[in-house]
């Protein structure tokens, strides 16, 4: 039975279509990465999953139950840590932790204590006095300790330094290995977090343009570079995603599996990084020509 299933979701704000016919399957206990530019619809999607807002059409099912009809079906399985802060501002950290313990049925106090110690959190501070980074850390602590079957983080590493981001990634992997659950994590730090995910979901202008493993995404595109006429000759049989010219040398990004091509002398083939691929997929076409 599918724990979470999204079918034909659309949502508009006035004339702006935030989501257009979105379909997603969360087929098992996996770590899902949600990638998209600002305004692509990530937060709208997460807000619909968590029943904070409702879609105009389509449905979200948790264990086959439509959550629009029965929000409880998802709420008892979910911990959603949104990007904006929703904790009462004048609460002390320890009170927010107490509140969280009472909110999530699988909450694990030992995990909370471990993370409070790891991140050196002062539990007597007021939430409003925490730095941006520590406000993110609070969400990481509660999300991890919730042990909710569906744990969602919207931009969990915002404002965190490189050390703290690495600590979060390590904790996530360590705990996921022992206690698998569905994690949905939206982030702009694609390159450094890419290896964490079972699947990458790429959203562009309200539409899901990819849902597959990072590995298979990367296997589906490659760079070809060399003398312009040689590159053109090669790439005429491929779909070209972008073109860059530099001193008579040409580099194109094409769609296809690099391992299946025959090497051609005078041409260089190489893999894209996930960040570059993302930019090619969701950015403006041929944006490098402008440089």
């Amino acid at each position: 039975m599918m724990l979470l299933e999204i079918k034909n979701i659309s949502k508009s704000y006035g004339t702006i279509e935030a989501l257009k016919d979105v379909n997603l399957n969360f087929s098992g206990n996996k770590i899902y990465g949600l990638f998209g530019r600002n305004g692509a619809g990530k937060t709208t999607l997460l807000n619909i999953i968590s029943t904070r807002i409702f879609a105009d059409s389509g449905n979200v099912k948790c264990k086959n139950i439509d959550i629009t009809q029965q929000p409880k079906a998802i709420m008892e399985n979910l911990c959603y840590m949104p990007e904006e802060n929703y904790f009462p501002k004048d609460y002390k950290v320890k009170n927010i932790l107490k509140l969280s313990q009472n909110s999530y049925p699988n909450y694990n106090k030992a995990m909370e204590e471990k993370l409070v110690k790891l991140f050196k959190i002062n539990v007597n501070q007021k939430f409003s006095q925490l730095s941006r980074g520590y406000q993110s850390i609070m969400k990481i602590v509660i999300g991890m300790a919730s042990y909710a079957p569906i744990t969602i983080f919207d931009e969990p590493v915002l404002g965190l330094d490189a050390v703290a981001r690495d600590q979060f990634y390590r904790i996530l992997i360590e705990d996921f290995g022992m206690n698998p659950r569905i994690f949905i994590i939206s982030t702009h730090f694609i390159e450094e977090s890419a290896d964490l995910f079972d699947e990458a979901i790429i959203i562009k202008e309200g539409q899901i343009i990819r849902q597959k493993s990072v590995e298979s995404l990367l296997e589906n595109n490659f760079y070809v570079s060399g003398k312009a006429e040689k590159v053109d000759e090669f790439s005429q049989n491929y779909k070209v995603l972008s073109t860059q010219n530099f001193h008579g040398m040409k580099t194109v990004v094409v769609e296809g599996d690099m391992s299946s091509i025959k090497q051609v002398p005078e041409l260089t083939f190489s893999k894209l990084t996930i960040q570059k691929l993302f930019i090619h997929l969701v950015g403006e076409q041929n944006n490098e020509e402008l440089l």
Partner: protein
Amino acid sequence: MKPELDGNKSIYLQIAESIEDDILQNIIAEESQVPSTNQLAVAYVINPATAAKGINILVDEGILYKKRGIGMFVSSGAVKKIQTKRKTAFYDKFIVPLVAEASTLDISKNELIDMIKKEEKK
């Protein structure tokens, strides 16, 4: 074990190669246990499924085998197997780029052979 993975090659292939390197260098001996999927995932901060994919390549090739309920072990004869496999790849991986670069630098065949002999004497 490699201290860090790089972006030039699929992560699961790097996991498999890194274990092979350890076996070739006798860091992990035949018939001894290799790190678990979860241990590898934590060590490299990668998804456990990716680590498992790397391990499974080696299982399919008979380099590792599973002891039920205990974990993954290095097969006896694994060193020989890895050597045979890598010898096949040696030509494409080392000789082709070596000759290509030598040709770009106008290094003659004899010079190249002399260099190899010189390196062997060390």
